[in-house]
């Protein structure tokens, strides 16, 4: 049984028994990755009731959380995605990639154009540089919602490829602002080469424990990115492909598969499952606190960009089909609309891109409010699914459950 499934079963059993024990509640919360929204909610209340205390706290923890703790979140994400590309994984069959990749490009273009148009029609040109933020799709929450609606279905794969490509575009678009901000230090390229080379050597030596990869290669990679002015939270991304992996089955992202060799305790996500969630709790707590007076035209533009992304995805797919490509088998247009709506959720990734691009202050606050508001796409996706009668709302429900 997977780790997450165990958590959910324990929580479900406690619930069925009419009681929610502390342990059951904890398993429910961690099983549904709810610590991030809990952290965000606490931050919002705190920032609006005791702002001086909150912002002092947030400033103190910003670097340790955003630059160090989030290393493990992005590491876990990279690990999960890499394993999805292995045999049995949702992303293994690359014939499924072209249409969602085109959708990702279309979604990003749609979001960026809508954002730029909104900013240009406003009186706040300062925000124009923020368009890469609009590429961010929350891979955790959008994934959970789409999977909750469709269970194991090509829609889940479609969303994964779409979100992965879109966020990759976001990171690439952000790169120039790091490259040209004048904070670069020499020699970091060599340091990164050493980190990756060492990881390759460890793999060649068949080192199955992940600790040397994380502590030695990860630390070198972190230092290289930090010195170069790039977000050091991505330190494990170039190391992950060399780490020990287990095979996946479709729809098991963020779930820990016990492999035949029984080495799960040494497996990265098994060990770091809770740590990553604590990191997400802190990320929400440190970054989501904005004063309600912080909304403005940047907020409107961010929300409109989310709508533009949904439209861009659908238009890009329509264009792809017009030139002869095909939707993945079993994926209908109605399913696609639900996926496109869920993909409007920027949340974690939009927040991360925003703090990477803008320093603390009024501009960042406006974008943050917008990023938080895009979470409305999650219940909206459920609503659209219900309206269209797809996934769990399909009249012949049993055909979607296994």
């Amino acid at each position: 049984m997977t780790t997450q499934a165990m958590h959910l079963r324990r929580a479900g059993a406690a619930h069925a028994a009419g009681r929610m024990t502390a342990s059951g509640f904890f398993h429910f919360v961690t099983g549904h990755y709810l610590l991030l929204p809990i952290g965000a909610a606490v931050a919002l209340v705190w920032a609006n009731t005791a702002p001086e205390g909150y912002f002092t706290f947030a400033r103190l923890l910003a670097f340790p959380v955003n630059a160090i703790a989030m290393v493990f979140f992005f590491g876990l994400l990279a690990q999960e995605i890499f394993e999805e590309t292995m045999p049995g994984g949702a992303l293994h069959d690359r014939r499924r990639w072209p249409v969602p990749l085109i959708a990702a490009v279309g979604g990003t273009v749609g979001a960026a154009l809508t954002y730029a148009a909104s900013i240009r029609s406003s009186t706040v040109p300062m925000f124009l540089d923020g368009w890469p933020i609009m590429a961010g799709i929350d891979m955790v929450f959008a994934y959970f919602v789409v999977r909750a609606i469709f269970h194991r279905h090509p829609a889940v794969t479609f969303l994964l490829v779409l979100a992965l490509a879109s966020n990759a575009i976001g990171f690439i678009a952000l790169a120039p602002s790091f490259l040209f901000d004048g904070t670069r230090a020499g020699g970091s390229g060599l340091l990164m080469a050493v980190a990756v080379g060492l990881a390759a050597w460890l793999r060649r030596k068949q080192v199955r424990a992940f600790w040397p990869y994380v502590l030695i290669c990860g630390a070198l990679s972190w230092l290289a990115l930090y010195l170069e002015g790039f977000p050091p939270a991505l330190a494990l991304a170039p190391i992950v492909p060399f780490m020990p992996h287990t095979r996946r089955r479709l729809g098991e992202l963020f779930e820990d598969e016990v492999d035949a060799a029984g080495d799960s305790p040494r497996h990265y996500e098994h060990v770091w499952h809770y740590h990553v969630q604590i990191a997400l709790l802190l990320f929400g707590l440190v970054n989501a606190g904005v004063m309600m007076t912080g909304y403005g035209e940047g907020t409107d533009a961010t929300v409109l960009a989310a709508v533009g992304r949904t439209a861009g995805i659908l238009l890009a797919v329509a264009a792809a089909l017009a030139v002869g490509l095909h939707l993945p088998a079993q994926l209908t247009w109605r399913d696609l609309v639900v996926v496109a709506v869920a993909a409007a959720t920027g949340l974690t990734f939009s927040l991360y891109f925003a703090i990477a691009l803008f320093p603390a202050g009024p501009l960042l606050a406006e974008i943050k409010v917008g990023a938080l508001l895009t979470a409305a796409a999650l219940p909206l996706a459920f609503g659209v699914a219900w309206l269209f009668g797809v996934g769990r709302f399909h009249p012949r429900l049993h055909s979607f459950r296994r």
Partner: protein
Amino acid sequence: MKPILLCLVFAALAAAPHAQTAADVVRFAVIGDSGTGGEAQYQVGRQMASARSRSPFDLVLMLGDNLYRRASPEVYASAFERPYAALLADDVKFVAVLGNHDSPESVTYPGWNMNGQRYFSFTRNHVRFFAIDTNVLDAKQLEWLDQTLSTSQEPWKIAYFHHPIYSNGKRHGSNVELRIRLEPLFLRHGVQVVFSGHDHMYERLKPQKGITYFVVGSGGQLREGGVRRSETTAAANDQEQLFLLVDVDREALRFQAITRNGAVIDSGAVQRQPST
């Protein structure tokens, strides 16, 4: 006879703050959120010229949102050059910071004397001005500010920027996120007076930890009823567009808030603290 005497006494009192020599007094005007190009901005501009004929000044601090439309020669002309034509013709120097509505490229506009810099510092006699960009208050700027403040030897240190860190404006209010970054530097290095805009009203706050904060965000814009007075409010006005006229000698900073109709709705003095 009695009315004439009263008039003479009044005239003498009115002239008193300005009786010192130019070397002793640094006099300047302050406008914020001015760049609408509307009639109210022009009226404020005329009152500034009128005030200057009585109390000459050659410096104007602009607190941001100096333009509300995308920067272009026509917009600069209609929302800056024409409203303040009389002042510009007399070589009055406007020194701006940018607000959230300004275009980033405006730092190179010659009329605002920013010399391509988002943040900078300059000195007039015994006053050191610190122009801060609160749109992008990054670590580099904070380091510069800390360094520049620490080396400043002038008796008066005055900071100005767009977003207020203390304000009772209903729309925006105090930006606490900026406050926790700027206030410790102001306190450590003896900044005594701070000017901001952003909230479209006028407010003078009671000294906060010894620093007097002004919100002068109605140089062209106005949000009527935009002030929510609190125990920190010393004076406020949300009914008229206005500018601030300031005299600084070695011991005191005197100010008058003058509306577009020429009425003085607030005035007073801030004494220099001996330790600074």
